[in-house]
């Protein structure tokens, strides 16, 4: 086993526009772990994701986010990405005039200097194929992508970023059945390939959650962690969700 890593939320309280969304949320992911986070609409899942990535609209009023013992709370989104964090987005940004490929190229250059032609041929094309995208689609700008295409592009971005810790904020919603199965198998494959890396999957799709072989499951309810458990919790949640577990 190589170096040990850890992502940790410690008693987080988060507000947006002075209204409190997250109250006392603690969770952790250790090296090699995959954590599943479940929760109803409006329970605060996206707030956690965006706060983790450093979105300027969210304020941590109490508590801390630690990546390996280092606090991320005051780091810029850029620094967080450079420390190895990748947080997927649910909605495509409305960026005109910039191709998806040019952003992916910039992201890849953080790891390795390579010219655009080699990048396209050697890196982008095989990875695009692996997520079921025709690489020609990356010539488009983000605002020209459909919802499902954007989700596949996010998966592709994850592969390009090679993050130490990936947080998938409902990446599977909007993906078709084939896309979901690509999502699950890619994560399983990357976990096997890089046993030190951490994954957090936020989802509504319980079949998908089960297929991921989670080490731990958290349930977020109205801004609080209501349950923590093993993968079995998914099954309980599945049968008990309608009864409030």
């Amino acid at each position, binding site marked *: 086993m190589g170096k040990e890593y850890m992502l940790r939320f410690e008693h987080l309280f988060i507000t947006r526009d002075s209204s409190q969304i997250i109250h006392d949320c603690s969770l952790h992911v250790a090296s090699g772990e995959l954590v599943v986070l479940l929760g109803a609409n409006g329970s605060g899942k996206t707030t956690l994701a965006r706060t983790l990535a450093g979105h300027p609209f969210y304020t941590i009023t109490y508590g801390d986010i630690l990546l390996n013992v280092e606090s991320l709370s005051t780091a810029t989104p*850029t620094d967080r990405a450079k420390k190895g964090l990748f947080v997927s987005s649910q909605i495509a940004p409305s960026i005109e005039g910039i191709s998806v490929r040019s952003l992916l190229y910039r992201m890849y250059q953080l790891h390795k200097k390579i010219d655009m032609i080699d990048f396209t041929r050697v890196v982008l094309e095989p990875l695009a194929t692996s997520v079921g995208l025709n690489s020609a689609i990356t010539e488009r700008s983000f605002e020209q992508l459909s919802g499902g295409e954007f989700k596949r592009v996010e998966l592709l971005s994850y592969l390009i970023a090679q993050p130490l810790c990936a947080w998938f904020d409902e990446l599977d919603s909007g993906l078709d059945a084939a896309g979901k199965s690509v999502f699950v198998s890619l994560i399983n494959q990357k976990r096997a390939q890089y046993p030190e890396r951490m994954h957090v999957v936020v989802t509504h799709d319980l079949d998908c959650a089960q297929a991921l072989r989670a080490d731990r499951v958290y349930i977020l309810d109205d801004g609080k962690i209501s349950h923590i458990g093993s993968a079995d919790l998914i099954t309980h949640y599945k049968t008990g969700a309608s009864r409030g577990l």
Partner: protein
Amino acid sequence: MAYNDLVVRSGLTPDFVRDLSTRKGEPIWMRERRLAAFDFFAHAQLPKLPVPYDQIPFERIRYYVELSLAERSGVNLDDYTKNYYGAYSIQLDSTVLFEQLHQDLAARGILFCSLDAAVQQHAQLVETYFESVVSHTNDPFAALNTALWSGGIFLYVPAGQIVDQPLSAYYATSTPNVGQFERMLCILEKGSRVEIREGCGSMGCIDDAKGILHSGVAEIMQKEDSSLSFTTMQRWHDQMILLATKKARLEKRARLNWCDANKGCHVIKKMPTIELVGAGASGKIVSFVVSGSNHVHDTGGRCVHRAPETISSIVSRALVLNSATAIVRAATICERGAHNAQGYIRCDTLLQGKNASVSSYPQVETHEQTAKLSHEAAVRSIDQESMFFLMSRGLSESQAQEMLMRGFIEPIIQQFPSDFAIELEEFFSDSCIAYAGSDTLNF
């Protein structure tokens, strides 16, 4: 009647104009036109400029500067022509220094030379068309140009002639406090086709940071079924005052694609105008401006429909940085009788800078029921969600800003002739990065 303040400050007199004409050995009719224009200018009420008149040092301007032989020989022609091909003309200060027209074009009757030379060699054409599109009564600064013009460009394309290679004209300044009064006269006869590329400012070799005023006039006459692509790239230094009057008249089914890119200049006042006087004529104005530091840039376009089935569009993008002030004007006017005319305006502005400001004036006016006119205008600043998205992918704040600004200019670059793309990218995105560099985004 007394002269206006500007004439008093400049020290200009009818004798100066007379001497200029004599020095050029002009025929009497041209001297008379200069003098009539001067008289109009001297008594005209001055139009409002984007900055107060006392900020423009008219008293320091040298209104005519002819370079000496020694100065001419110090100019390296290669610096101007390396990126260009076809025929060309280069004006430095008040006179055209170099011109070249390929033999095969000359053999087909195509005339391309300085307007000074045309007055001597093609007097009849010049006398017929000079001021036929832009009259000195249009605007006091058009009158000033008519009185003082020097150098300039004359283009005549006979009926049916197609010019495959672009014709290029450059204007640069080299003498302190020079005022440059360049004038372009283009006549496209029936069914002819040509592309003109016009560049202003330095091409890397001339220290053009010495010019003070560039006041140009372009008049373009397009006969039936003629086609013109006209691209202007202005990149003057940050002290230049640019006041331009540019107008094209399009007869039946004539087509004009007019692209205008601007950066630099303390002050710009320019509004290319297309008059669609013949049925089925179509014109398009593409305006791209990058304003930074304390620039005041008043740009845009104007299309006037005077005939049925005419089509126009004005597409503008302005990138306004630092403490710059942008004024974006776009006007479509549809006169009575212009049945089924179609006009479209789209103006986008990106503001980036704490003290940057923009005023947008779209104007749509119709006196014809069957006309279809539309306009869209949007002013925005850099979107925080987009910044967050790019930064969360590892781009620094300035890299993310740069990327979004590049993205903003990309759609307008695509409206220019395709081989301008690289040049536009280089000149404009480099400058927007430079201007943005001193400003941090509130993020």
